[in-house]
């Protein structure tokens, strides 16, 4: 192999490495964005879900109390 062939092979190698690095960065960026969005959603909805669950618990107790009151009233 002569000098030019070596040069060509080295060029191909560098181009391939560059493509790989770009792809990796692109994929990492996509994953980071998506993870961030999901985490933000989890945080936002998590608080709301917690509040709603607490409210639901309170409402269930209220329903039980009302049912008891109605039963007592019917008697």
């Amino acid at each position, binding site marked *: 192999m002569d000098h030019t062939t070596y040069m060509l092979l080295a060029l191909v190698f560098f181009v391939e490495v560059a493509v790989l690095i770009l792809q990796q960065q692109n994929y990492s960026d996509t*994953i980071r964005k*998506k*993870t961030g969005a999901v985490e933000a959603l989890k945080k936002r909805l998590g608080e709301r879900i917690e509040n709603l669950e607490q409210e*639901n618990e309170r*409402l269930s107790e209220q*329903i039980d109390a*009302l049912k008891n009151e*109605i039963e007592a009233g019917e008697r």
Partner: protein
Amino acid sequence: MWFSLTICTGSIAILVLVIRTMRAKLDAHLKRLTKEQNAIEEKYLFTKRRNKELKAEIAALQNALTLISHNIHSTASSLEKDAAAEDDTLLISRHMLTKGLLTVEQNENALKKMETLNMDFLGTCLALGYIDLDKARGVVKSLNLHQSPLFAEK
């Protein structure tokens, strides 16, 4: 020359393979994240729906409770009215016996006929002809019976 071409082709094939593997991993990761997102959204919607249902149930129960308490009050007030009417009847009957407007027999007969005629004591006495209208008005006036229909009449 052929050797270098083979190396180039081989390295490009490896590059494509590596990129495909990376893409598959990325897709799997994105799928997992989307699944997580959907799960939390579903949980939120479920909790919200449950909250709505519970609120609607509470409203229905409160309505039922209000109806029940109204029934109890109306029953109690009708009982009170009945008791008041009974008291008036006894009062009028005693007053008329004391004043000699009715005999004991007439009094008992009027008390018996009250339910059949569906009238108050004075009305029954009037209907049976034991007393006239003026006497009835006099009784109403002397006992101060505001609720009697004869009270307002002149």
